[in-house]
């Protein structure tokens, strides 16, 4: 099993290719990899419940750990207690931990 951390920094309301990252995460998880999708910057916008969050909830249901950068959430006034189902807030340390532990880390 390989460990992947995919970092999504793009806003799905602005970029049509955000779905690429979700698709990749789902495909990697489907073949038994350990996959985390980490949302950062405007990438956290769909973490709000109802704001195009269905893809994230579906992803979490498929075995992908979906996290949203706490700092990016605070910057945008998004309440950590009102995130979509399957999405949790987490510090940026998650990325540094993954790098230090040798995970494959991909920025999008």
């Amino acid at each position: 099993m390989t460990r992947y951390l995919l970092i999504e920094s793009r806003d799905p309301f602005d970029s049509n290719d955000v779905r690429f990252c979700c698709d990749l995460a789902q495909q990697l998880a489907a073949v038994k990899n350990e996959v985390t999708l980490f949302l950062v910057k405007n990438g956290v916008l769909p973490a709000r419940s109802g704001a195009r969050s269905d893809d994230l909830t579906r992803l979490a249901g498929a075995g992908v750990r979906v996290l949203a950068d706490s700092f990016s959430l605070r910057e945008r006034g998004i309440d950590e207690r009102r995130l979509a189902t399957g999405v949790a807030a987490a510090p940026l340390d998650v990325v540094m931990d993954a790098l230090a532990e040798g995970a494959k880390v991909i920025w999008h």
Partner: protein
Amino acid sequence: MADKKTITIAIMDAPYENARSTTALRLIDLAARRGYNINVFAYEGAVLQPFSGQTPHPNAVHGRNVEEENHFIPKDAIAALMREAERNGGKIDWVNCGLCVDERGAGAAIAGVRRGSPADLWQMAEASDNTLVIATR
């Protein structure tokens, strides 16, 4: 330190243009606090991040002087990160792509920044525990 790591981060964004730069500096800060060795390969506009000619300015529109404006200066943040890394037993090796520097006239950089080429990124990655490329879109 038994768990001392070496992490390479490649960045491309010029200062003041995208939050990717902020996130890159946040990641470097985390690594510095952990005492890791951090390699930074800056190319394209990112070679201007440690440009020593950056100057804080007042904001006449809002009626604030230099001190009140307290403008964020990337070169100062990078110098502070270098000090933070050293304080924790690590080091930041910051390489600016030479061609990118020449194109932009960005040869003046703060102490601790050296000139290199994309070959340095490959060598850094080879010598690191892991590498993150923060690409522009």
